[in-house]
């Protein structure tokens, strides 16, 4: 089992969801987050005070998957989140982490069966 965390552009969320559904990955947790990469965010100006390094809005998707779904899910996110053919700076990252245990709270089931 793996835990996939993807940080993507907010306006790419709908595409990523569509691609994931095609691969029958139907469970995810989505949150609004802020952050910045090497470009150090945006500059904002309020009454002539320039504030650099402001955090950009991003979407964080978390998905727990069984091992045979990992590649399909990662490729689906990649397809949905990449801007254009060659992609753009700020399209985001995908992290895949080992997942030790899963429990379904309602039934108490555990392991691969609890994940889906």
């Amino acid at each position, binding site marked *: 089992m793996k835990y996939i965390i993807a940080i993507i552009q907010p306006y790419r969320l709908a595409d990523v969801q569509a691609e994931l559904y095609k691969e029958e990955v139907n469970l995810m947790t989505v949150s609004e987050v802020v952050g910045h990469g090497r470009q150090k965010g945006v500059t*904002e*100006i*309020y*009454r*002539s*005070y*320039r*504030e650099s390094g*402001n955090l950009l809005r991003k979407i964080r998707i978390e998905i727990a998957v069984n091992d045979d779904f990992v590649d399909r899910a990662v490729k689906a996110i990649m397809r949905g989140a990449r801007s254009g053919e060659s992609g753009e700076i700020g399209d985001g990252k995908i992290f895949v982490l080992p997942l030790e245990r899963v429990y379904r709270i309602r039934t108490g089931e555990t392991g691969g069966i609890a994940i889906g």
Partner: protein
Amino acid sequence: MKRFATLLILFLVLFASGGMVFAQNATTTTAAPAASAPAAASTNAWTASAAVPAPAPAQPFDTGATAWMIVASAIVLMMTIPGLAFYYGGLVRRKNVLSTMMHSFGIAAIVSVQWVVIGYSLAFGHSDGPLSPFIGGFKWAFLNGIGPYDPSPYVDPVAATHLVPHYIYIMFQAMFAIITPALISGAFAERIKFGGFALFITLWATIVYDPVAHWVWSADGWLGKLGALDFAGGTVVHMNSGVAGLACALLLGRRRMPEGTSTPPHNVPFVILGAALLWVGWFGFNAGSGVGADGLAASAFLVTNTATAMAALTWMFMDVLFHGKPTTVGAATGAVAGLVAITPASGFVNVAGSLVIGIVVSVVCYLAVALLKPAAKYDDALDAFGVHAIGGAWGAIGTGLFATAMIQPGINGLIYGNPRQMLFQFADIGAVLVYSFVVTTILFKLVDWLVGIKVTPREENIGLDLTQHDEKAYTVID
């Protein structure tokens, strides 16, 4: 406790001495009634209201003017709450939004009571003796002797026949007395204790605002008699509050953040909402200051809107020039600056004058906010000084430059051949500047000594909403 006792004694002494002055006034007045009676129009109405509390005025009220003054008074209150509360509330960080809104709301409550107890009497009342040009005395404390059918002693300067009830004039001026200290709150936002704030505002309204309003607007005021022109409060309201704001910002010190940094507004739509409410309410402020519903009111409305629009456009242009893009906070700030600057001029200048006043105010205020503030390193959090003092001072100068007899017969400024007017305007600016700065400093130090005025570093870090009011504006979960 000791300090509270000192405060109590201070107040008692103040009121006792006031009572004695009142008693002396009473005796001298009977000896020489209306001896020091002021200028033409106000005299008759004044003595009429003071002498016999008649059930109805000799002349019926002008219902049109009265209706307009009632509406104007109400929308001037709207400038402070919710207008200024949202304007300032949006500009602060979200941990301080309630405290900032509470400054406006609390002042509305404090000054409303102060006004009927003592404020109106000190500002617009009449006192005998050498202090008469400087302070109104206690004759109208608790609105003593003023009834619902008494006509206002202050009337439309052009059509001197307009009669509105004294009560509505008192309420109209009450709203001015409310917004003035509320404007100061932009300077001390995000770092003041609520208790110290409340005491400071009570004292400031009584000892700074009321005398200054008396100087310029009362029948006896020395600046008004001298010939200084301030139609709706460029110096009395805006310079006065802006200068007091600077004094407070300097005395309180910077908020806890690195030098050269500032904080972003937590809710820009609040800022726009507040600025828009100010813009609308300002028609009551300026077009109501003629105390009539007539051509003068219409003219004030026209120039107010024009100068405001021009100032908003100019600020947007400055933003583009300096930073490449027009900002919404900038457009709102420019509009407020325009409103400030046209305030003293609104009953004296025509459209041409208002356009120039609008352009220049945004340029000078922009430079004050963008260059002067960072260079001088004072932390005028929401630019009470940069917009209201600078804008108000320019408005007073602009009035002296562009006043034209086309609006009020016989009143011309420099470019219409009356250079002397500039002297009176500078006297007005100088007097308000010095008095406001010095007395604000004294009051601030007094309150700091009595009850303490700055929050602790820990309270400032946590935010004033939680530490001063046990509340938060926004829940995170449900």
